[in-house]
């Protein structure tokens, strides 16, 4: 027997809960419920469905728990290359046919690869529903590897790398930052792969990757939109369930050793403006500090009233912008800070101002107002993610995969509300120390000189 479980998720309830915690009352015009139905197929794939009739469309996301962290030196970037090859022909839909058939039926697709996961996205009108399952089943079960396609797709990925890394200063610096901050763990290499690895993958590498990562029991499917759970489960029984299960990728056992002192790197590159990026080691996403860190990041970086914007952009006028980012991660990861110094400003000036602000937040509690603001911002951001079927599919999948349970989504508001000033002091002290940081600086050199 397959288990069907239901969880009623109410946007309005969530809002009310959040606001009550903040001592406010709220009157909501209308409540709308978005129940999530789940089922685990016999082959181990978990399927989550949320019905929404707002528009007659469906978003279908498949999360595979495989990314560049599962790679090895010599074949870096193969997860991402493989993601491209998933569109280049299987048994029933040959090279080029997947896209042609999908678009001719009103659908479109994309996919993304991170250090941890590979995610396939289909967006389509409900009329394309059986077809989409036929396509997905075909490529999960019977992907083929055409040597000509491998050759041309290798060039496509090289072009993608030139676009997002080699000809983009922030891309270059970011790559160097990860490579320096991580010395043991596979997070050190870029998702897109080093260029020399892109040039040298073999057919055998691709086949190995498919066998390792593309088991149904290594995947989670999320469907949101104009469809009922029963319809989706029935399609899954027909198309997905017969696909045999097999071993998931071997665990990544390497643990990044504690960083015991600041690391610095410099990139000299033709540019008009310098760049600064900092990396701090932080725990994996499902760690309890996730919420406190996000609240802290909000206070420091989000909006023109944030501490960093006020200091670097508004008051000192040494930067054009300052921001922070992190991605969901299975293993201890990195919180990145990036600043775009103004022309002629030494990046070290920005560095100094950032450290002063980090010290300030580590040594004195934030104000009540700042804390309340950050929680309000997190709540609105939550609605922004959840207002489209695409955003909801991605969010439900992210919580299911990275927190181990989509139900954690329903706890997010409560978890944010529970963050205290003491939590913020503790995480600021714990993670923003000098010994835990890597500093990457891009220093402009004359373009003419570089061309010679």
């Amino acid at each position, binding site marked *: 027997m397959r288990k069907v479980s239901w969880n009623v998720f109410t946007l309005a309830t969530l809002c009310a809960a959040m606001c009550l915690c903040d001592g406010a009352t709220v009157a909501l015009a209308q409540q709308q419920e978005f129940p999530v139905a789940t089922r685990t197929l016999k082959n181990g794939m978990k399927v989550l469905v949320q019905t929404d009739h707002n528009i007659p469309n469906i978003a279908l996301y498949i999360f595979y728990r495989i990314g560049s962290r599962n790679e090895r030196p010599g074949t870096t970037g193969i997860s991402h290359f493989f993601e491209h090859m998933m569109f280049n022909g299987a048994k029933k839909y040959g090279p080029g046919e997947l896209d042609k058939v999908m678009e001719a039926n009103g659908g479109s697709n994309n996919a*993304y690869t991170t250090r941890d996961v590979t995610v396939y996205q289909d967006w389509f009108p409900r009329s394309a529903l059986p077809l989409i399952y036929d396509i997905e089943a075909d490529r999960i079960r019977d992907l083929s590897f055409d040597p000509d396609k491998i050759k041309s797709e290798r060039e496509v990925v090289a072009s993608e790398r030139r676009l997002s890394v080699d000809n983009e200063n922030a891309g270059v610096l970011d790559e160097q930052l990860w490579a320096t901050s991580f010395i043991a763990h596979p997070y050190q290499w870029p998702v897109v792969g080093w260029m020399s690895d892109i040039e040298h993958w073999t057919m055998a590498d691709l086949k190995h990757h498919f066998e390792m990562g593309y088991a149904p029991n290594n995947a989670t499917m999320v469907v949101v939109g104009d469809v009922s759970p029963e319809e989706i489960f029935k399609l899954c029984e027909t198309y997905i369930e017969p696909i045999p299960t097999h071993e998931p990728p071997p665990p990544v056992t390497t643990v990044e050793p504690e960083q015991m002192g600041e690391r610095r790197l410099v990139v000299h590159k033709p540019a008009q403006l310098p760049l600064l990026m900092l990396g701090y080691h932080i725990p994996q996403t499902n760690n309890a500090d996730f919420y406190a860190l996000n609240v802290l990041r909000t206070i420091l970086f*989000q909006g023109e*009233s944030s501490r960093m914007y006020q200091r670097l952009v508004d008051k000192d006028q040494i930067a054009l912008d300052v921001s922070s980012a992190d991605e969901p991660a299975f293993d201890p990861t990195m919180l990145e800070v990036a600043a775009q110094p103004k022309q002629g400003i030494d990046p070290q000036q920005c560095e100094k101002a950032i450290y002063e602000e980090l010290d300030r937040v580590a040594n004195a509690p934030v104000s009540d107002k700042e804390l309340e603001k950050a929680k309000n911002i997190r709540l609105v951001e939550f609605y922004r993610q959840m207002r489209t079927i695409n955003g909801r599919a991605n969010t439900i999948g992210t919580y299911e995969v990275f927190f181990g349970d989509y139900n954690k989504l329903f706890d997010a508001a409560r978890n944010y509300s529970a963050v205290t000033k003491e939590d913020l002091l503790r995480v600021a002290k714990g993670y923003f120390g000098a010994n835990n940081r890597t500093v990457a600086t891009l220093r402009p050199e004359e373009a003419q000189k570089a061309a010679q």
Partner: protein
Amino acid sequence: MTRSRANRSLAFSGARTALALIFVATIFAASFAPLRAETLRMPPHEKVVLKNGLTVLLLQKHGVPLINISTIVKAGAVADPAGQDGLATITADLLRKGTKTRTAQQFAAALDFIGGSLEAEASSDYTVVNLEFLTKDLARGLELFSDVLLHQTFPEDETTKLLAQSADSIRAAKDDPQSVAIPYYCGYLYGTHPYGRPGSGDEISLATIRRDDVVKFYEANYAPSNTIIAIAGEFNADEMKSKLEQAFGAWPARTVKAEAIPPVTPSKGKRLLLVDKPDASQVYFAIGNTGVSATDPDRVAIRVVNTIFGGRFTSELNEALRVESGYTYGAESFFDDRKAAGPFAIFSFTKNETTTPAIDLALQVLAKLHKDGVTEEQLKSAKSYIKGQFPPNIETSRQLARIIASHEFYGLSDDEVNQLEARVDAVTPDVARQVIQKHFPADNLVFVLIGKASAVGPAVRKYATTQDTRLISDPGFWPAPVASKK
């Protein structure tokens, strides 16, 4: 900043066309959904014109407790005075930087406290001010909204600060060739026509702008009769109307001189601009000519044909330049429809070594479009694609507010959505042939390339009789400033 991920493909019909209208309707094949033969329609909305001439549009949409306001002030980069490119943008950027009751810092604090988002920017035809906040914060949200629109003071120090930052932002953008391809292309395509102006301004024009210019621009253009306020989301319409009347009813009526857009003349012959970025390993290229206006009667047919030519993953361009040859990660074409004829361009990029093979191939695909037109099968596929992909464009109150504001500005109606299923389906191979002949350039082409001139310069000379070059670090885009300050 999501650099730790890599995507499979470029997002088609992305930011560049975000302000353009969407010309598609939708229907759903009933084969698998017999009970749902619905046609997608715009939700009902109403229009109120206040005594002072302010146009207010209201659209109630339930589900998520957010309110979105999209405001159009009918003055964009086209209204920038000569030599002061970027003035409309700077004026929009300064709206939040100080009001009669709030400093820039106090305004930011008030906005951030409710998790609100405010975007103010100028496109060619108009300035748009978008605000979003939770329904429960309606009173504060509207107060902040009227503050930015009516009560700003344009403080001298904030103006100076912003101008310096904006000029540096252009320098930073030039370090990333993809992000400046379009300003160079529009400059070279339109020359001195206002559509050639960089909306952001450039390093030279921004240096000429003073606070007085901003105040003058505001006073000349920000007036009730020149403004459309569209509100969508979860609210009570009667309550909203009375609140808006309170907030904006006393905005004094003022006569505004409508900005006339000079007629657009398509570029003749073949011209090529090579923007030299000496360290580039990849060449970024835009090829095309002027396109059409937002109200062109052929707009739907153009949309259908462009979907086939360069508007989706399996388009002719992407199939040739990416899928079959591996020259690039992405190739596309787009029409950016405006009040007068906006630009049309083919856009792609490739490594230095394959510059001419890739451009040759793009030109062959264009030539083939003219020679062979499109097939019945291609039309069928493109129609399904457009109709199937349309609904997510009218999914949120944020999108709906922008669409109704934009329709009002261009004088278009809900038929853009409600009737276009029929309009899309009416496109036949014959109609497509006429549209290709009339709107897709053939022999008259403008080429703009950003790349390493010493590597690709000699080979690309064959494309045009008129050739120009610039160094990317030179101030300005195009036309080149007369006296270049180095």
